């Protein structure tokens, strides 16, 4: 049976170069980079090489990379680290309603500790308004945290405008960006965007699981989250995950090697997939200007047009959120699964435990569609054939599934 793995925003298949590199380092260079003997030195060399590669992708300094166990730890370190280090400067934090739980849950914790959190809403495409941000920033605002790419609908946030506004209104305020869905899908130069902290997770771009990093601009005041043996200059104790970190660097290198061509290819696939989706009855695409029912699809040539323009009009290259009227997302998910197609439900609802997606609510999605939304997420491995197969399956399944609905 043909398979189509379209759940790359959940996790990706590692590059074979990554699994090879991880296995090799794990097996051969098992020394502790803190050890003083040769074995330790060899391991440290891999760390240095990894750092050099990552630094190259961000145009930053080696001292600005803090290795973590992944996106969640990076986000937690950013939020608690800044909140605690700067508690005397202020206790106000700004974030958005559509962040990942790795941001929202620490925020809820900080609220209990006495911090005040302001939440930015979004427009119908999932984008925050920099003007609204400007009105919220106060002298006691210590941190603003905004995601690069929304994980549910692929909205790209106006980070450049946000960064400018923050530094204009309160230069002391720290700007954190959760780039878990954005890194390796975009060239992000933190300095250009006034970003002080940025979270990255390796397994979202074909690296190993359980490893990631937090970019920390030099001289940013931040407390550690984990204490112990004092590794990474005391910012994150614990023996470095050398094979994982090296694997992450290999994945980053490979992702950025031919990024633009790869992005153009993915945007081409995304555009065609979206067009074919909306040609099915009562299917709508979320978060893309011009993809509302009845609207004309943006005439974009993914091959030649300016990349900034493509981004502006089509959102993230890899995420497509679609609502299927009259079909419960969980049922559609399992029906697709039956055909070897793997996707995510936008907002999984069960009869005894409703869960409503904050992102889908924030973009004002119709109530009856909240439970009818599916996320397709692609990667560099995604092929035209997989998408064609998926469309074929959808055309095949939807009429049957729509006949049997709850009344």
């Amino acid at each position, binding site marked *: 049976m043909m398979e189509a793995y379209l759940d790359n925003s959940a996790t990706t298949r590692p590059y074979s170069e990554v699994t090879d590199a991880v296995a090799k380092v794990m097996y051969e260079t098992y020394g502790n980079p803190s050890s003083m003997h040769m074995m330790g030195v060899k391991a440290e060399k891999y760390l240095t090489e990894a750092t050099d590669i990552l630094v190259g992708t961000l145009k930053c300094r080696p001292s600005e990379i803090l290795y973590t166990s992944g996106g969640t730890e990076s986000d937690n370190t950013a939020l608690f680290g800044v909140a605690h280090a700067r508690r005397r400067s202020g206790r106000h934090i700004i974030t958005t309603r559509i962040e990942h739980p790795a941001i929202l849950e620490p925020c809820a914790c900080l609220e209990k500790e006495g911090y005040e959190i302001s939440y930015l809403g979004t427009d119908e495409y999932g984008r925050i308004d920099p003007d609204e941000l400007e009105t919220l920033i106060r002298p006691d605002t210590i941190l603003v945290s905004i995601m690069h790419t929304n994980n549910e609908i692929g909205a790209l946030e106006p980070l450049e405008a946000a960064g400018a506004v923050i530094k204009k209104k309160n230069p002391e305020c720290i700007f954190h960006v959760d780039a878990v869905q954005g890194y390796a899908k975009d060239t992000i130069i933190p300095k250009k965007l006034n970003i002080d902290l940025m979270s990255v997770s390796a397994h979202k771009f074909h690296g190993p699981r359980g490893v990631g990093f937090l970019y920390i601009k030099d001289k940013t005041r931040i407390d550690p989250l984990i204490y112990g043996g004092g590794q990474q200059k005391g910012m994150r104790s614990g023996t470095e995950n050398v094979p994982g970190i090296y694997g992450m660097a290999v994945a980053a290198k490979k992702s950025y090697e031919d990024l633009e061509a790869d992005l153009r290819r993915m945007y081409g696939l995304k555009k065609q997939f979206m067009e074919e989706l909306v040609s099915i009855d009562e299917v709508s695409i979320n978060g893309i200007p011009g993809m509302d029912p009845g609207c004309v699809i943006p005439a974009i040539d993914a091959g030649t047009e300016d990349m900034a323009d493509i981004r502006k009009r089509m959102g993230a290259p890899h995420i497509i959120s679609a609502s299927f009227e009259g079909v419960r997302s*969980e*049922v*559609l*998910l*399992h*029906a697709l*699964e*039956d055909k070897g197609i793997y996707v995510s439900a936008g907002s999984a609802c*069960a*009869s*005894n*435990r409703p869960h409503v997606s904050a992102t889908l609510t924030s973009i004002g999605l119709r109530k009856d569609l909240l439970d009818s939304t599916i996320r397709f997420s692609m990667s560099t491995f995604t092929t035209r054939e997989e998408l064609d197969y998926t469309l074929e399956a959808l055309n095949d399944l939807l009429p049957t599934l729509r*006949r*049997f609905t*709850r*009344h």
Partner: protein
Amino acid sequence: MTHTFLIKYAEIALKGKNRHLFEEALVQQIKYAVKKTGCEYAVRRAQGRIYVDVEDGDAYDDDEVIDALKHVFGIVGICPIINLEDDDFEGICRAAVEHMGAEYPEREGLTFKVNARRARKDYFKDSMEINADVGEAILDAYPEFKVDVHHPDINLYIEVRETVSIYSRVIPGPGGMPVGTSGKGMLLLSGGIDSPVAGYMVAKRGVKIDAVYFHAPPYTSERAKQKVVDLARIVSAYTGPIYLHVINFTAIQMYIYEKCPHDELTIIMRRYMMKIAQTIAEDTGSMGLITGESIGQVASQTMQSLACTDEVCHIPVYRPLIGFDKNEIVEISQKIGTFETSILPYEDCCTIFVAKHPVTKPRLDVIVRHEQNLTEDIDRLVREALDTDEVIIVR
């Protein structure tokens, strides 16, 4: 070292000539339960008593063994005992004193009573003498204890049989009758709270349990099925291995949905589930169906609805929860450990297509008339559903 447990059982001792069979079944169930702990063990029967000897190896854990025994129906009490091979009276006194000292380190003000039983009438002291002399030995060693023969805090039992047992702790067992002494039943198992409890209740009366689960992919997920397997596994700690039959019900459900009034969907669906369960029951030697229904809990469980579902069955349908309130059922499910799994949020096929206002007082003649809309294909679909039977042996 060996840890010995004296197993008390009451009800099965009353069963006259069948007693032998019941004890045999109880021993089997005890073996099944203790084996799971991974310890070396032996079960022996002597003079109307069952003893479990468990070797004190690396795998041994007191709580784990007691917990395993608490899952065996037929056991009324579990007594960790000191087992003396030798009936030398000084040895008995010494062991009794040691036991009281070790078990009750804070004895100030505690009262006790010695309860001796002498099965061997040729023993040189009678029960009264044993009581008095052992009591005296304890008081000599620990003057903080007091004797109270009417309402003692501690009952110290001394049983003189082929060996001597000394114990003061009786841990309550689940009661009931050993599984395997009352035939076999087919449990309709959903992912909900009620049906695992129903299985537990009937198994408690000695009934061996098989189960059937109706799976409706893609409307119910693989995880919903796994949840049912997990529930069966929890129940199987009480019942022994369960043969879980998984039947793909989607086609029948859809067909009913298309051909019959939606407010009668659940009732007609349940009639077909009962029919299928009955067929499997008959093929596999079950003498009745078991469901978790309780009167009036939902639309399909009114007296009228139950009459309609019953009408398709010619073997008995046992509904052990029939008079229970939801909170009473929840209480049992928490006690037997199924509750946390039951409330996991996965759809079962009964809730997927449920109508907003299902009939609560269905009339059998109306239901039967509407079922005639199904004549064309339903027999074939039922046969095909039976062909999908996937048997999972849960233990």
